């Protein structure tokens, strides 16, 4: 146990990283900043205690955006009813994730292609950048449907709309971040926040708030144990039906991200990780979250990465991180009061820009289907929103997957006894069509079909063989199948016709 110091230090860094994220993600979710901090404490704590890996959980961009998308149409941002709806949504998410665990559903996330995940992440990055513009330019009461309308209005009405003070703070934050990254790849977000904060102090020192109209974070009424009981009410239930599809999307996206992270950890470190247990940990942590005034979270790519590079290998680092968040905000609270929202938004901008990776585009450009998934996901997200984009991503991944497995590898050899057809792949209703063509082009000849490399045969394939063999018999040709024992048993069970000769290998 000489390692506990490493874990504690990693937890400390994780805490510093998560504070600005928690605050900004709370903003994306339409909630007051303290809810993001509670999320950074309690979701992190519970999923680390219950989980098996050194993954850092907590507030997550995509999840936060989706909460906002789901609940903003139902109630005014941040109002008590809004918060009730958010908590209700969070409970649903937790329950759905626990259901996933009961059904041992972790496996289905393997079908979400990496290109789709990168596309979702890039799309979310774009949405974050657009959301951050609101605060950087101080466009508080301003709504458009499509991003280009927003850009158009901003550009055509810049002098009226844009708050120059806010813009200066935002830009200095972003510059601070990018310059800071040259010197410290790990702490540049902190450097960005500090630059923005200092710039904000300077602006406030020279120009008074009634003139600048800058938005500040304000005092945070933080409690050590912010118990809350989500109110579930008949009248709520009627409206909350609308939340169900979002609950599924959030549950899915949260787990998808967490499991991608955990799988990576499992492959690249020698941690003893149980995927199902991680699903359980996420689900229970998210279910408990609303009872501690927190919204749901999921695994975080960036914090887990930092955590790993500091050498943490156990869930203890996550527990330590939760503790440090609590300690840090207790002391930082008064300082954070005068944090300009533009500085927070500047860091959001950097986070968003980081999620759109040019290297991803180049990577996926090599395979056409991957590129299509990536771009279709990205484009549908920036035009139709995250939820639609995710549905499209899942649909495309599954289609590509199905297309791929319905492909058969066929090789034809001409033997004296007739034609030998070797079939590689799964032989089922979707792939039988490929065989039909080959059968037609060799119609009237004796055919031998080698099935030893066929991974799966279904009823429709057997029906196909029976049909073809009787056609061929009418032409005086013969169908022979080379099969293994298991396939023989299966064919026997389905009652194979006597026209077909079966040869066991």
């Amino acid at each position, binding site marked *: 146990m000489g390692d506990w110091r490493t874990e504690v230090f990693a937890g400390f860094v994780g805490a510093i990283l998560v504070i600005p994220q928690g605050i900004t993600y709370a903003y994306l979710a339409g909630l007051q900043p303290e809810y993001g901090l509670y999320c950074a404490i309690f979701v992190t704590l519970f999923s680390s205690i219950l989980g098996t890996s050194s993954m850092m959980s907590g507030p997550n961009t995509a999840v936060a955006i989706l909460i906002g998308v789901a609940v903003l149409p139902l109630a005014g941002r941040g109002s008590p009813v809004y918060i009730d709806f958010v908590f209700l949504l969070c409970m649903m998410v937790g329950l759905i994730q626990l259901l996933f665990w009961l059904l041992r559903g972790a496996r289905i996330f393997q079908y979400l292609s990496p290109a789709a995940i990168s596309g979702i992440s890039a799309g979310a990055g774009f949405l974050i950048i657009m959301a951050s513009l609101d605060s950087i330019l101080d466009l*508080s009461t301003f709504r458009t449907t499509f991003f280009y309308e927003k850009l158009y209005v901003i550009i055509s009405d810049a002098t009226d709309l844009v708050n120059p003070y806010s813009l200066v703070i935002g830009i200095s934050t972003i510059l601070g971040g990018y310059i800071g990254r040259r010197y410290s790849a790990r702490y540049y977000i902190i450097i960005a926040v500090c630059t923005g904060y200092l710039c904000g102090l300077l602006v406030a020192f020279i*120009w008074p*708030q009634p003139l600048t109209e800058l938005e500040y974070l*304000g005092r945070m009424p933080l409690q050590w144990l912010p118990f809350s009981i989500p109110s579930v009410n008949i009248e709520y239930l009627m409206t909350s039906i609308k939340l169900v599809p979002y609950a599924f999307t959030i549950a899915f996206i949260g787990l998808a991200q967490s499991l991608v992270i955990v799988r990576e950890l499992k492959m690249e470190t020698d941690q003893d990780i149980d995927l199902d247990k991680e699903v359980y940990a996420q689900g229970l942590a998210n279910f408990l979250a609303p009872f501690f005034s927190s919204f749901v979270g999921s695994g975080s790519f960036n914090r887990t990465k930092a955590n790993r590079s500091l050498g943490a290998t156990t869930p203890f680092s996550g527990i330590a991180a939760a503790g440090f968040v609590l300690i840090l905000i207790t002391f930082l609270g008064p300082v954070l009061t005068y944090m300009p929202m533009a500085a927070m938004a500047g860091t959001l901008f950097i986070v968003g820009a980081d999620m759109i990776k040019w290297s991803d585009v180049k990577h996926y450009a090599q395979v056409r289907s991957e590129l299509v998934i990536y771009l279709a996901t990205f484009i549908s997200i920036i035009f139709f929103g995250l939820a639609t984009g995710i549905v499209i991503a899942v649909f495309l991944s599954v289609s590509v997957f199905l297309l791929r497995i319905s492909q058969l590898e066929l090789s034809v050899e001409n033997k004296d006894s007739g034609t030998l057809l070797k079939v590689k792949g799964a032989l089922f209703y979707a792939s039988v069509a490929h065989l039909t063509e080959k059968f037609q082009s060799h119609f009237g000849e004796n055919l031998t079909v080698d099935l030893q490399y066929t991974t799966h045969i279904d009823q429709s394939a057997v029906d196909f063989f029976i049909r073809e063999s009787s056609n061929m018999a009418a032409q005086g040709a013969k169908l022979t199948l080379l099969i293994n024992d298991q396939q023989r048993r299966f064919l026997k069970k389905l009652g194979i016709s006597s026209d077909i000769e079966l040869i066991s290998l």
Partner: protein
Amino acid sequence: MKINHLLICGSLLLLLAPTLSHAQQNQPSIEQLLVEPFLDDYYSNVVYGYEIITDTQKHASRYVGNSLDCSNCHLQAGTQKEALPLNVAGMYPKWRAKNGKRNGIGLRIRECFLYSLDGIMPPEDAPEVLAIAAYITYLSQGEVMGAEPEGRGVPTLPATGYDPNPANGRSVYLEQCSSCHGEQGEGIEEMPAVWGLDSYNKGAGMNGIREAAGFIWANMPFGNGKSLSQQQALDVSAYLNLQYRPADPRDSKFLKLLEDLFN
């Protein structure tokens, strides 16, 4: 049998109809709303707004810099005449000299946070601001749009012929006010502070001698309004005006520093 039932139900509905439409016109009282919160966005915001006005420290602490609540000045949660009542939604938007702009009710609310509560100006779309605006709309139900409601603001005291005298004001304060507001203006027990760092700042409307005099004459000592003479009210108000309190947030700290450096 069934038809009978239907008939009975139908006639009951007909009987109820006038009362139903009546109930719709008369909005529920705050007490009703509080015990059985309406889930309707508007009424839930009204309740939230009411809670902020009466307990600003708890429900809108994010933007508050001193220890006052809105209802310390807007008495009875903004329902008392001549004590800055809040049934004024029909008066906005309106041009104001204070910032030389047309002001919506939202800006007015945000300014009371900045000056009277010596805090931070909340953003226009902050949930707190929207909720207070809903509450103000709720209170203004039945007022004529654009017409000044009766008892708006505080009474304007007529010229008394004498200048307000802070020295007299001090003795009035020690006699009449310090039992509640404290000798140092800090507010004893649950009473609000009238000066010092926990009170309104120098930019607040209450820091205007005439405005405060009107408020004090009509409402103070608490529960015994209009017992001071108008001259006493002006004097005590001038005394309060001279006391130490947070700086006007409209002043640039930078210019102030330059001034200090040159003097």
